């Protein structure tokens, strides 16, 4: 890992490729761009971002595209595999080599794990990983870090709860891995069988991170500064009965929040199902829509830095 605040030409594949100082620099850059207001529209003028989405993820794609438009740049791309040449059997390598001729930077989402790293072998343009299968999703993770800093001032001393399906939630794993570099406490609440995977637990232990695991929040809720809620799908439960019996333990509503700190921050990667009641949306605690906005602001920082424009 070479630490440098000159990101020009670098790819964003995995947050682990970046030092803590570099990550904090990205946070600072996102701030500086927001302070520029309308002038940010000059940053990427004349540049082209290609959004290559072999699998649909409207939310992530719109976030990247909005980020580029807000930097004054242009966007091209595709949003599902059936409309691309890969449906005609084109290799990932050929698609990347071709698009590298048209675009200055690429954001890609692909169902295969390791696809973004593979793509970097065929591109002299920076590539931002917008999700490679169930593997990594660094722009989401960095957006979440930016959200925590913006909402709480700093990460230092934060007590963060994670609620829901912690086994299959990719966003949780990379975020937890990154947070373990900071002075935070983490508390995991999940139904039996949907706990954090062994490799996440082992890496937390190896790093000496402070964390607890339990099936419900009762013991911890009152101490939490942040509650990160994840989608919990019916299919993940052992049976329909079990789902009905347990789903309320993994649902956040106004009644539950009465037992929490008054200023607890509620986050969610969106889209949500029933995990957060809509009556929470109007409370100042509901950070999940601001989180989507901060995610886009972080993507503005990533695009600007990788193009060497900031």
């Amino acid at each position, binding site marked *: 890992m070479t630490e440098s605040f000159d990101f020009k030409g670098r790819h964003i594949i995995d947050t682990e490729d970046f030092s803590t100082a570099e990550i904090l620099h990205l946070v600072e850059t996102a701030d500086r761009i927001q302070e520029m207001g309308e002038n940010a529209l000059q940053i990427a003028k004349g540049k082209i971002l290609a959004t290559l989405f072999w699998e649909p993820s409207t939310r992530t794609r719109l976030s990247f595209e909005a980020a580029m438009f807000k930097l004054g740049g242009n966007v091209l791309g595709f949003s599902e595999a059936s409309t691309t040449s890969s449906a005609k059997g084109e290799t990932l390598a050929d698609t990347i080599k071709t698009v590298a001729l048209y675009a200055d930077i690429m954001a890609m989402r692909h169902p*295969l794990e*390791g696809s973004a*790293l*593979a793509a970097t072998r065929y591109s002299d343009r920076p590539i931002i990983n917008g999700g490679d299968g169930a593997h990594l999703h660094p722009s989401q993770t960095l957006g979440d870090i930016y959200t925590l800093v913006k909402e709480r001032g700093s990460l230092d001393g934060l007590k963060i709860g994670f609620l829901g399906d912690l086994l299959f939630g990719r966003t949780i794993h990379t975020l937890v891995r990154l947070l373990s570099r900071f002075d935070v406490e983490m508390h995991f609440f999940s139904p039996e069988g949907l706990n954090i995977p062994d490799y996440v637990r082992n890496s937390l232990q190896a790093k000496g991170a402070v964390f607890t695991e339990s099936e419900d929040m009762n013991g911890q809720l009152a101490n939490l500064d942040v509650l990160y809620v994840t989608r919990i799908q019916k299919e993940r439960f052992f049976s329909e009965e079990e789902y009905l019996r347990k789903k309320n333990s993994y649902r956040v509503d106004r009644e539950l929040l009465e037992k929490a700190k008054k200023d607890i921050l509620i986050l969610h990667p969106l889209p949500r199902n029933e995990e957060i009641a809509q009556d929470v949306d109007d409370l100042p605690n509901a950070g999940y829509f601001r989180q989507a906005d901060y995610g886009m602001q972080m993507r503005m920082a990533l695009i600007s830095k990788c193009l060497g424009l900031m």
Partner: protein
Amino acid sequence: MKGKEPMRIERINNGIVIDHITAGKGIEILKLFPTEILRTKIDYASYIDSPRMGMKDIIKIENVDVNHEWLLKVALLAPDLTISVIRDAKVEEKINPTLPEVIEGIITCRNPKCVTVKETYLTSLFRVARQENGKLRQQCQFCEHIFHS
């Protein structure tokens, strides 16, 4: 077959003897041979007694030289093995295949969702380390899945 190892080695004048193969893995090693090698005389004994290993497999191949890539494949399958090169009925050289930390190609990722499995022109890249229990830990550098052998 039991206890007759020294005699069997003497039967080879030129070739290689692959010894101390994890019991039962010999058949997988045979599958790694290029077909032209399979046209020579091969002796293969499985599950024979070994003072050091309990049970082991042993393979003898006449009139063949070893090449590096092939050795590496073999070492990955059975990390404890030794290879003796026989010339004029004498052991000329004993080779303990050493594993590099990083192996390009050779290993195929076992994660069906890995990009290297579908986009087959990609050269696989693995980080390899021997664990305390003697097993090999292999981590795909694309999908990060970990396998043991």
